[in-house]
């Protein structure tokens, strides 16, 4: 129980002058409990209950109220705020140092601003440069002019960058893979000065376009006609970075003199003899790109005296629901000489040109045979992922020619052939044994040659058709499949296998 103090609190009083001197006076508002660390008291042994001290003393009323205690502090008389004396306040003590104005803030601000401006400028330049490649031209002529400029600088990257995206993607992966295979198999040197790796320099000067303007094929293809100029072509096989081993294997008698050629084509003369040089440009996303595939198609049509395709010649793309189904439908179409279905199944991204020239192709296609002697009874296919596409390869094929049924199945590196119930397994070793006992009886294959030939044969089942998906439909990619053909055959070869095979076939 708290009792009020019986005397005013004197902070200067000696302890013990009152009954409660050891306790501080209660401040107005009551006691404030401060947090204290709790310590567990040491447990003491139990001593039993304390002895009975009798009843507690009776309650005594508190002493009468004596009035408020005199205040310890008396307010000082004041006349309010007085203005400073003339001359200001007197400075007491040592003189204070003059406050220095900080020069750091403006410097920091200047450095930060300069850094941000520089960083922004550098980023702007970097983003601009990263998109600085050929991004299409405003007109077909500008597109061709830009291509000629890169051709004159031998800028292979720039030349490839000029192609429309569909053609670029059809070429880039197989070509890149082919170069890697050539280096792995010691055909191309790893460290060569590749600035002229193709061995061909093409320099075009004085290019002049036809005054009659460009020829319109359809709403997205135009042909630029070149009527004047000179194209110098310098080809030199010696400048291609082939390895010494490859050159010895491919040219045992040394590189022939014909491996170097210098030719200049007068385009004005070509124009007089055969008409202007025609280069097709394709419009993609509102920009014009020189097109390799459209140029080839246009060249074929005009060399054969044909006419440009019209809107009615367009054959729309109609894919298949799966990669395997696309190839199966293509095989069936081929079996029935259904070229329209083949064109429909062709990728519109890679070979848009086939769809545009569809009618022209059908008019020039060989006539459909009235009765096919070949009947496909069953076709089983495998799929595997290759870079950017799905490759569909053969698992088994059953076909029927009048009176005979044959099944060919791929089993590892061997072929299982069943003809009219007669089973036979054909492996690379069988081919090698056949060669050694037949045409090569006098000089049988060495162990190295046999191994290389065996590995080469194991690449044959890897050959397939590359298929891609667009808009949920699957389409054939003929250009890509063709370019990947050599990659499929070269892939299983090791180290010097290709050089060994070259020597074998050139002996």
């Amino acid at each position, binding site marked *: 129980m708290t009792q009020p103090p019986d005397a005013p609190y004197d902070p200067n009083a000696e302890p013990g002058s009152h009954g409660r001197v050891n306790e501080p006076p209660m401040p107005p508002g009551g006691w404030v409990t401060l947090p204290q660390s709790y310590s567990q008291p040491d447990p003491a042994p139990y001593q039993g209950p304390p002895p009975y001290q009798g009843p507690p003393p009776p309650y005594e009323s508190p002493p009468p109220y004596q009035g408020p205690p005199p205040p310890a502090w008396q307010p000082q008389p004041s006349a309010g705020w007085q203005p400073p004396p003339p001359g200001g306040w007197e400075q007491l003590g040592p003189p204070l140092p003059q406050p220095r104005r900080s020069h750091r803030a403006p410097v*920091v601000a200047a*450095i*930060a601003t300069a*850094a*941000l401006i*520089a*960083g*922004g*400028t*550098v*980023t702007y*330049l*970097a*983003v*601009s*440069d*990263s*998109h*600085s*490649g050929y991004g299409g031209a405003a007109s077909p002529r500008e597109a061709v002019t830009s291509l000629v400029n*890169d051709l004159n*600088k*031998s*800028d*292979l*990257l*720039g030349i*490839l*960058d000029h192609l429309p995206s569909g053609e*670029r993607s059809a070429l*880039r*992966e197989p*070509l*890149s893979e082919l*170069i*890697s295979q050539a*280096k792995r198999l010691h055909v191309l040197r*790893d*460290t*060569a*000065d*590749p*600035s*002229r*790796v*193709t061995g061909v320099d093409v320099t075009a000067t004085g290019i002049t376009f036809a005054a009659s303007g460009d020829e319109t094929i359809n709403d997205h293809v135009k042909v630029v006609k070149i009527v004047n100029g000179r194209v110098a072509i310098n080809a030199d096989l010696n400048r291609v970075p082939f390895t010494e081993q490859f050159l010895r294997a491919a040219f045992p008698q040394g590189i022939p003199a014909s491996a170097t050629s210098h030719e200049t084509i007068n385009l004005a003369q070509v124009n007089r003899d055969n008409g202007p040089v025609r280069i097709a440009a394709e419009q993609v996303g509102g920009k014009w790109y020189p097109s390799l595939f459209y140029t080839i198609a246009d060249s074929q049509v005009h060399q054969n005296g044909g006419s440009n395709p019209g809107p009615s010649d367009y054959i729309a793309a109609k894919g298949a629901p799966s990669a395997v189904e696309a190839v199966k439908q293509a095989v069936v179409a081929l079996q029935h000489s259904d070229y329209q279905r083949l064109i429909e199944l062709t990728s519109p991204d890679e070979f848009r040109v086939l769809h545009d020239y569809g009618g022209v192709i059908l008019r020039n296609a060989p006539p459909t045979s009235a009765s096919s002697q070949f009947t496909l009874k069953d076709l089983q296919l495998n799929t595997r992922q290759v870079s950017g596409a799905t490759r569909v390869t053969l698992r088994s094929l059953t076909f029927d020619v009048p009176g005979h049924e044959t099944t060919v199945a791929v089993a590892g590196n061997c072929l299982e052939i069943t003809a009219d119930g007669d089973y036979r397994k054909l492996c690379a070793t069988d081919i090698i044994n056949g060669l050694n006992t037949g045409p090569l009886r006098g000089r049988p294959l060495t162990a190295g040659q046999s191994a290389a030939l065996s590995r080469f044969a194991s690449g044959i089942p890897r050959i397939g058709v590359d298929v891609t998906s667009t808009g949920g439909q699957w389409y054939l990619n003929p250009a890509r499949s063709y370019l990947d053909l050599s990659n499929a055959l070269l892939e299983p070869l090791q180290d010097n296998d290709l050089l060994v095979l070259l020597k074998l076939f050139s002996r």
Partner: protein
Amino acid sequence: MRAVLVLGAAGLLSMVIGTFLPWLRSGEVQRNSYASFGVVRRLIGFHGAAELLLRGWPLFGAVCAVVVVLAAVGLLRAAAVLALLVAAWAAAVGGEAVGREPVAGVRVERLGPIVTIAGAVATATAAILILISRLWTRRAARDPTTGRTV
């Protein structure tokens, strides 16, 4: 400390300048790192670690500017850590480029990558020195009896 800051600034500047020097030659045409990665991305594409490193490469200069701003406002430790990351990024990209073999008329020009790598080494050295000095300063400021910073 001033010498270390100058070293770091020189390193950052070298890295940025290096990215604009020739990195790739195709025929007679030279391209800086940004143009090179742009055209190679369009023609071939990047995969895996290379894609990860080069996705934000055009922002390299901006990140270097952030390092300078952090250092200028006195956040030296944050600036040093970011500078270390930027230096590692630049060294990885430059090292990867220098190690590439020429392919089909296209070869790596060594000037750009080497200047960038040299800048990265200088930047990393400065950043490490700053971090070490900060650590020592912090230790020295500690009360040896209580272990608390005074």
